[in-house]
């Protein structure tokens, strides 16, 4: 069991990392792949790699960026595999939307969540990944560029494309 804590107090045991990043990894996987079962696979594969690599992780940069990079690569690998297989387009399963609002709000919220989900379907996978990391997870442009291994200007371009496409689709929610 890893128990080393560094001065910045980042979670470092596998359990702590899982608790801290399972939802974020699931969100990244789902937003890229739009399939909740495949997103669960992203979480599992990511943490298998995290467990394997943690002993040699030297703390270069924030641990979040390291985990997101592993998660992103797993999502892309699963996406390639899916593309290579003959798949039934009806077989994708959509995410169970999180039950976190009060009962009275839930119908409206569920509708909004479904609209936000559907609107993202129009974006390409790289654009979805960029938008998820920057606008949903709140990473800086620099950190997103590091995770996706692209330039900061490419992040900004993709982000502008994502926001513009989503703006058009979600106009009724934006007044």
């Amino acid at each position, binding site marked *: 069991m890893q128990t080393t804590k560094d001065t910045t107090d980042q979670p470092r045991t596998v359990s702590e990392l899982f608790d801290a990043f399972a939802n974020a990894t699931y969100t990244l996987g789902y937003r890229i792949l739009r399939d909740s079962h495949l997103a669960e696979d992203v979480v599992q594969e990511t943490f298998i790699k995290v467990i394997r690599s943690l002993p040699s992780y030297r703390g270069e940069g924030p641990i979040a960026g390291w985990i997101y990079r592993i998660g992103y690569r797993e999502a892309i690998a699963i996406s390639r595999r899916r593309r290579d297989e003959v798949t039934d387009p009806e077989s994708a399963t959509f995410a169970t939307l999180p039950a976190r609002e009060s009962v009275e709000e839930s119908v409206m919220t569920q509708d909004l969540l479904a609209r936000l989900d559907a609107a993202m379907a129009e974006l390409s996978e790289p654009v979805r990944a960029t938008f998820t990391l920057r*606008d949903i997870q709140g990473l800086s442009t620099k950190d997103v560029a590091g995770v996706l291994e692209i330039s900061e200007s490419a992040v900004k371009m993709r982000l502008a494309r994502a926001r513009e496409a989503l703006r058009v689709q979600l106009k009724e929610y934006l007044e």
Partner: protein
Amino acid sequence: MTMTCDDLDLLLPEFLDGSLTTSQEEQAAVHLATCQQCTIEVNELEGVTKLYKEHGMLELPNEARQRIARALDIES
């Protein structure tokens, strides 16, 4: 030099990222103060971010969380 709608449009990626130079930022502010169309557009684009920041995170379903934790041999 005054900034046009097209000028602002070209700078939107940097504008929304908050990474314009000070002088570009000032020119953008001058343009926005007089252009309702661009103001609406910028507000809506910022609204997109706000919507997803508030509602875009998903929770790994509990059943999957437990199954994965077991597979990884960790407690969660």
